């Protein structure tokens, strides 16, 4: 039995067929991608915190970038990871990529790091490395805190990490100067804070998808996180800070108008609702 056809203006305003909504959204995105109206992006305080945390790492310590994301959040976490890698290279900080879940993240992040390494003349195994996907969640972190070579085993390419030049002198968590969590999964941050940042006072920064970010503001407030990138916005702000405007900046140009469309659609729906309520004397459910 099909839904009754809208008859009044207020009903028609509230029941625009969904395919038209989809076309409107696609149209706005395509329009702005092809003819962008570029507006300035100013880095926010949480984003500056991430950059400052990276710059403050002592030269003899390692940065661990955990890329706990996959293609489902690639539009946000990909540019975040890329701009963090640029910040590490520009500040001449050695870093490693690793991943607790899902497995895809290390390959995607590896491709980004390889591309950036070409630009800075960085060598794999010397300036950066990829520890790979390590299954085990808390067990990996507890082992990593005590003995990194044993906890990690082989790197992404099958080489024992102890044989990599970047790992010289790196035995346990005390040689790690910063952990940057880039993730679209909840519960990862709590593990890192509870097992690494809290007991060993290892500085922690994070980059989240925009969905998750509001949940982690309390950890920013308590200084358990030194800084936080919020979705594509945070990625765009860090791209501006490292002077590599790229995909995230382009996304934010488009995002503005998509948000205006969503706001307009919600207002339109509510306008129809209020008209209908007024017509029925406030008895509309």
């Amino acid at each position, binding site marked *: 039995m099909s839904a009754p056809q809208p008859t009044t203006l207020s009903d028609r305003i*509230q*029941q*625009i067929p*969904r395919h038209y*909504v*989809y076309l409107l*959204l696609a149209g706005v995105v395509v329009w702005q991608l092809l003819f962008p109206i570029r*507006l*300035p*992006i*100013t880095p*926010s*305080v949480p984003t500056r915190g991430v950059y400052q945390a990276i710059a403050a790492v002592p030269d003899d310590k390692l940065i661990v970038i955990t890329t706990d994301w*996959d*293609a*489902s959040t*690639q*539009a946000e976490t990909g540019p975040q990871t890329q701009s963090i890698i640029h910040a590490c290279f520009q500040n001449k900080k050695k870093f490693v990529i690793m991943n607790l879940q899902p497995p895809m993240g290390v*390959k*995607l992040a590896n*491709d980004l790091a*390889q591309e950036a*390494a*070409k630009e800075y003349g960085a060598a*794999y*195994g010397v300036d950066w490395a990829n520890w790979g996907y390590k*299954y*085990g969640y808390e*067990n*990996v972190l*507890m*082992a990593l805190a*005590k003995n990194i070579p*044993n*906890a990690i085993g082989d790197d992404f*390419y*099958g080489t024992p990490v102890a044989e990599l030049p970047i790992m010289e002198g790196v035995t346990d968590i005390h040689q790690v100067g910063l952990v940057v969590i880039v993730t679209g999964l909840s519960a990862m941050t709590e593990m890192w804070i509870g097992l690494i940042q809290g007991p060993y006072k290892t500085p922690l920064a994070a980059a989240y998808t*925009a969905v998750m*970010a*509001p*949940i982690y*503001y*309390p950890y*920013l*407030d308590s200084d358990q996180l030194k800084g936080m990138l919020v*979705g594509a*916005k945070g990625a765009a702000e860090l791209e501006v800070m490292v002077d590599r405007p790229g995909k995230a900046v382009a996304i*934010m*140009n488009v995002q*503005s108008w998509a*948000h*205006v*469309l*969503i*706001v307009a*659609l*919600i207002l339109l*729906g*509510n306008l129809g*609702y209020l008209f209908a309520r007024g017509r029925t004397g406030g008895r509309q459910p």
Partner: protein
Amino acid sequence: MWFSRLLQRLFPPAPTPAALYLYLAFALAGSIVLIVALHRLLGPRGRRWLIVFVTFIAGLFFGLEYFYPVHGDPEKNFLTDWIEPVSVMLTVVGALTVGLGIYSLFQVHGRALAQRRPGWHNSLAFFLATFAMLVFGLWEHYLHLPQPPPDVLPWPKVVYEILFNGLFAPLQAATFSLLAFYIASAAYRAFRVRTGEATLMMAAAFIVMLGQVPFGAWLTSFIPADSPAAFFRLEMLGEWVLRWLNTPAQRGIIFGIAVGALAMSLRIWLSLERGTFFSEQS
């Protein structure tokens, strides 16, 4: 520690490759005998008590190591040196559960294929995709390409890249990008200001949505950044909502979750829970 010396004496590495296979065979045989013996000798009550005991000891090990006083330099107690080897062992044991999900998938799609159910060709596509990724993924791994990779890649690596970057990643990205359409449609159809609370929620959503994007910052850019009224610039207002209105609310939720999770962890550790896993199946 005497216990670690005893273990090193009991489990030294095998001296030769032949001895290794002998030790492996004996260990495997001994384990099977132990499991069969446990299954035959323990009744339902005995099995339950064994499960309770194992659960308790597992939790006790990690909890006790954290709370037991430490001494020396580096600071540690009698359990600290065991955290790393036990944790590594557990990661290996846990990694073997990958087969559980794979087995379920193979069962469902295998049945559909064998019985030629409607849509069986999709199940065939599933199997082809699984084995293609398995074969070329392992092949690529064992190529041990140098870093950085050469300009001309071997053909198994090319096929692997096509499977990964040409199919796997884009399919996942596209599937999740559909959510944009669904949230636009859902927001338009369902978000109605029927109550004061809904109005408040909508107002907060609008402030955050516009404050997070450059357009919102541009809208209120006429307000000087260094004046007291800068608070009303949309990006400042959005940040204020997230930092000072959202944060205490989320923290209240965190406290509730913390207490609940602690209670739940205690109940699980002490095997006080009832349910499908915790009770014997009939």
